[in-house]
């Protein structure tokens, strides 16, 4: 079975059928949506073993959530969840993983994004019940399996999903609005299958050139070129995918939060992460950064808030980096992002100390400063993204051995 993706016939068909079916305003609407999602999910599973594991992984948090309010239950649950996740994803560099038998069929599409949605659901459960937010198995399953966000997000929160799904004020859109929405979808497909494809080829081309040359300066140049092509590939590929799914959901009357906001305009790494993969940044801010920082502030960093912030930031981006992939390359990627974020935060603090709040704002407005910062951000992002999707550790190791 070919890999299920936004370029599959089925997905294309769903983009067209779903809006038509979801016009239905009756009580069966969640069921209709569920059937579409279930169908897609089953199609995306490579085997019945895969489906069985996926079903358990998706259902368990829903049924366990009501029982996790005892002290210590949640940390235990999340630890177990994390360990099982590491196992299913096959994080080869984690020591104990190699001892366990594993099969590629254990991985299923959406696994890494299910993790985020489950954690949100479990952590919010008590608050949701108290606030009287609708919680039911079918709503939970639609939230988890929505075929729009199944493949790679954006990461929605349960409460937002349910509120949006049952909104009463949805109006039919005009002909021109329809054309706009179609344009967004098609533009997204263009970004993925034309632009990102071109940049991907460019990136591959320069990557191969690196090992073919003997001159160090050439290798560095080729590496820089490779990095920039690669980061352009990532931008067009991921933002294009988001355009397709957000546009597609919009057609069906569902709102999915934006994931990109012109990241190439960023003047600092902090700003970059608030413009690129926004839903992930918000998730890690809420569910990793805040709790870690809070724990530090209440304990070891009582009088050292800024130190606590830097440690929390570093830990957050390291973990987020590791989530991106199962090889050591992603550990390095996370490490670099963590360092970069700390650097960015410290730099801002220093500048504010030097110029004062007003002076800092004036400084940031200066054109030359803006250009310099923008170039710096893009260079750093491109260099660190080099570890995403390419076995740079292997390549560097190979180069080192060859040099020796």
């Amino acid at each position: 079975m070919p890999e299920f993706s936004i370029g599959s016939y089925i997905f294309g068909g769903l983009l067209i059928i779903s809006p038509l079916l979801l016009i239905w305003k009756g009580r069966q609407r969640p069921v209709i949506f569920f059937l579409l999602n279930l169908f897609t999910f089953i199609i995306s599973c490579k085997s019945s073993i895969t489906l069985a594991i996926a079903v358990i992984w998706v259902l368990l948090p829903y049924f366990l959530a009501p029982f996790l309010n005892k002290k210590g239950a949640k940390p235990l649950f999340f630890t177990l969840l994390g360990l099982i996740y590491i196992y299913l994803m096959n994080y080869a560099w984690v020591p104990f993983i190699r001892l366990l038998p594993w099969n590629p069929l254990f991985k299923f599409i959406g696994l890494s994004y299910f993790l985020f949605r489950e954690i949100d659901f479990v952590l919010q459960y008590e608050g949701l019940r108290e606030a009287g937010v609708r919680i039911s198995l079918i709503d939970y399953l639609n939230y988890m399996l929505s075929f729009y966000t199944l493949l790679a997000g954006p990461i929605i929160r349960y409460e937002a999903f349910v509120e949006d799904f049952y909104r009463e004020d949805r109006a039919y859109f005009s002909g021109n609005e329809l054309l706009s929405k179609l344009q967004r979808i098609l533009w997204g497909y263009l970004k993925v299958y034309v632009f990102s494809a071109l940049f991907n080829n460019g990136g591959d081309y320069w990557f191969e050139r690196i090992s073919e040359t003997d001159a160090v300066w050439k290798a560095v140049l080729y590496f820089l070129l490779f990095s920039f092509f690669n980061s352009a590939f990532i931008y067009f590929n991921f933002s294009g995918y988001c355009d397709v799914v957000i546009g597609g959901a919009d057609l069906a009357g569902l709102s999915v939060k934006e994931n990109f906001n012109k990241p190439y305009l960023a003047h600092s790494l902090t700003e970059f992460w608030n413009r690129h993969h926004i839903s992930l940044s918000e998730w890690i801010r809420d569910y990793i950064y805040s709790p870690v920082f809070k724990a530090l502030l209440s304990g070891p960093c009582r009088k050292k808030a800024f130190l606590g912030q830097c440690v929390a930031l570093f830990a957050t981006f390291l973990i987020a980096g590791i989530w991106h992939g199962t090889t050591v390359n992603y550990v390095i990627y996370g490490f670099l992002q963590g360092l970069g974020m700390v650097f960015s935060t410290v730099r801002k603090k220093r500048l504010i100390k030097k110029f004062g709040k007003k002076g800092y704002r004036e400084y940031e407005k200066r054109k030359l400063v803006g250009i310099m910062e923008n170039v710096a951000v893009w260079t750093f992002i491109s260099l660190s993204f080099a570890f995403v999707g390419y076995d740079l550790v292997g390549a560097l190791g190979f180069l080192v051995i060859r040099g020796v």
Partner: protein
Amino acid sequence: MFFFDKLPVALKLLLLSLELAIVLYAVFQGSTTTVLYQGF
């Protein structure tokens, strides 16, 4: 999208058709790009 909304309807339809044609060609002609799904 910025400029798209300002075009007359006929041009919009033309543009959409052109984009659709290019996308279908790219997808079926085997643009070998995979979409970035984490872990795959």
